[in-house]
């Protein structure tokens, strides 16, 4: 059987790497000492984390009154940040699960980092409902366990209860998926290390992985099953988050468009965050041969699609409000675009609807500096999207006598910064301690788009199972 290669197929990994080069390139990042740049970034993130922790401790010990929330705007920064972080997390699962089912080979260069990002973003997200509770030490009341209060069970009809189940399931499955994928790579690190703590810890964590074909077969099946489970899961998580809003009868929230609109927005913002982090990583580490311009290009295209869906959703919301004949809906949307928070609304539209459309131009997609800038712009826009949805709908409710304004206090702002500190601290530690790129998966796509496998010294056609093994052997013996 001759090698059949389509000219459409181009290698995803540049630099004519051999198998051992992949292990070397990715493991060396972990084996060398951290650079000054890493320390500077780490200390800066840690400072933010400490500041945020201080703000949260103050808020918990004094009370939610330290935030700028009031009787009308009962949700603001806290839930904005929660939805923002959950959204960021969605890109990781999309890359690791959905693109796996679609057999997108380019995902192998980004899936590890994106999944790590998912886990850290979900940790950040999970903190916000917790500290928003006021009495966070009673959070376990959401778990339906037999208790001495009746037993009084949780209300399974409440979207807030669904949210708890959705996010804890999402975190657990994402963590399992990530760890299963990590095991072969931990074994690679273990076998490279001569002695010392790395060999010991990786030896413990790699579960005795030895690359057996029987294990690989099971591993691949489990990977496929987890991808199949995680795909509807990731869609369900943001659907349920949107139902926190959509099932209430607040104008601007009570719409059936919310689930697809939120899911598209989540993937949109998540991809922007993956781009932000990976563009820094590829330059600093460096990983230019693994995370190439073509990777950036395809990710920008996904951003165009999801960004356009988000833009369409904004338009649909306005059309539905205008066409509904419901004065409350009409007022809320008029108020969004022209009311006291119009600045936030137009920031959101500029960042989320207009800026991703620039990616239609090849020149912009291939200019990494512009892509990096736009990825940050999109994340700012997506944060404002949640802020606009939450605050503008609440601050002008049915009773004009209870209309209120909202502005965050320093405690809320520090809490938001602290969540960025937590996210970046965890991500920087991840870059130093675990392989940032899935070594085994990249090895699997190394021969993609190349005339022969680049791992061997010879070019040898793949033999068919011989019809007559005797003759084959005679030929060999000569």
């Amino acid at each position: 059987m001759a090698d059949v290669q389509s000219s459409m197929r181009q290698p995803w990994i540049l630099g004519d790497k051999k198998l051992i080069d992949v292990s070397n390139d990715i493991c060396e990042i972990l084996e060398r000492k951290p650079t000054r740049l890493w320390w500077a970034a780490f200390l800066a993130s840690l400072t933010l984390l400490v500041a945020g922790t201080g703000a949260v401790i103050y808020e918990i010990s004094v009370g939610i009154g330290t935030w700028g929330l009031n009787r009308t705007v009962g949700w603001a920064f806290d839930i904005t940040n929660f939805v923002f972080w959950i959204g960021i997390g969605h890109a990781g699962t999309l890359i690791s699960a959905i693109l796996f089912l679609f057999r997108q080979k380019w995902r192998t260069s980004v899936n590890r980092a994106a999944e790590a990002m998912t886990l850290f973003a979900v940790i950040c997200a999970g903190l916000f409902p917790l500290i928003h509770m006021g009495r966070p030490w009673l959070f376990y009341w959401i778990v339906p366990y037999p208790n001495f209060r009746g037993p009084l069970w949780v209300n399974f009809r409440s979207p807030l209860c669904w949210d708890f189940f959705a996010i804890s399931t999402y975190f657990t499955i994402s963590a399992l998926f990530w760890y299963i994928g990590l095991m072969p790579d931990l074994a690679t690190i273990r076998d490279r290390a001569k002695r010392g703590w790395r060999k010991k810890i990786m030896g413990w964590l790699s579960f005795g992985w030895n690359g057996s074909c029987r294990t690989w077969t099971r591993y691949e099946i489990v990977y496929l099953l987890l991808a199949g489970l995680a795909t509807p899961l990731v869609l369900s998580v943001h659907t349920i988050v949107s139902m926190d809003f959509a099932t209430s009868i607040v104008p601007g929230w009570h719409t059936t468009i919310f689930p697809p609109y939120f899911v598209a927005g989540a993937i949109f913002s998540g991809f922007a965050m993956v781009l932000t982090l990976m563009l820094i990583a590829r330059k600093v580490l460096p990983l230019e041969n693994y995370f190439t311009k073509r990777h950036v290009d395809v990710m920008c295209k996904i951003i165009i699609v999801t960004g356009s869906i988000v833009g369409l959703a904004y338009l649909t919301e306005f059309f539905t409000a205008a066409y509904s004949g419901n004065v409350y809906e009409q007022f809320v949307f008029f108020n969004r675009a022209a009311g006291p928070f119009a600045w936030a609304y137009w920031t959101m539209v500029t960042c989320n609807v207009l800026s991703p459309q620039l990616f239609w131009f090849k020149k912009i997609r291939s200019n990494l500096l512009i892509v990096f800038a736009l990825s940050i712009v999109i994340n700012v826009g997506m944060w404002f999207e949640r802020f606009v949805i939450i605050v503008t709908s609440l601050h002008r409710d049915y009773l004009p006598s209870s209309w209120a304004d909202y502005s965050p206090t320093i405690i809320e702002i520090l809490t938001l910064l602290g969540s960025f500190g937590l996210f970046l601290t965890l991500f920087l530690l991840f870059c130093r301690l675990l392989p940032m790129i899935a070594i085994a998966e990249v090895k699997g796509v190394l021969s993609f788009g190349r005339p022969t496998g680049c791992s061997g010294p010879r070019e040898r056609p793949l033999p068919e199972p011989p019809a007559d093994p005797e003759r084959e052997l005679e030929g060999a013996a000569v």
Partner: protein
Amino acid sequence: MSISNTSSPSRRIFVGVFENEKDILGFTREVTARGLKIIDIYSPYPVHGLEQAARFRPSRLPIICFVLGLLGAGLKVWFEFWTTAINWPIDVGGKPWNSWPAFIPITFEVMVLIAGIGTVIALLIAARLYPGKPAKLAFPGTTDDRFAILLEEHDATFDADEITRLCRDYGATHVEERTEEVN
């Protein structure tokens, strides 16, 4: 070459080491066609088609995943119904006690959770992987850039010289024979 004595508690193992995915795939097809017994094949990444070439049995983990998912979903529906309609029915917003459409989201989440965790545990049990297990490598570098195949020299028909030649023909970088204790 020596032929193993089947009555002893040890067995002779033939090890072929390759550097290339295509070489090990070709060699595996060859030895399967000859009816030799493959103990296992070791590779740094999953080589597609290798398990079919070696005629390994397909994994039955999907069945476990399906059964656990069904079980998780079933138990959760029952639990939600039992808590909200039987054990302590509370009127929430005038909704019916058995408001099954509202039970769908958590039922789905619990199905995914039980199926996912269960499948991973089943994988660890089936593949005998556990934290801290000492790694037994077939050949140094099988988690890096080497592909190794282990054949059992199970009877007198196993001609090690012939297989060595075949192995070399497929580009093997290293060939050896080992004796391993059978436990």
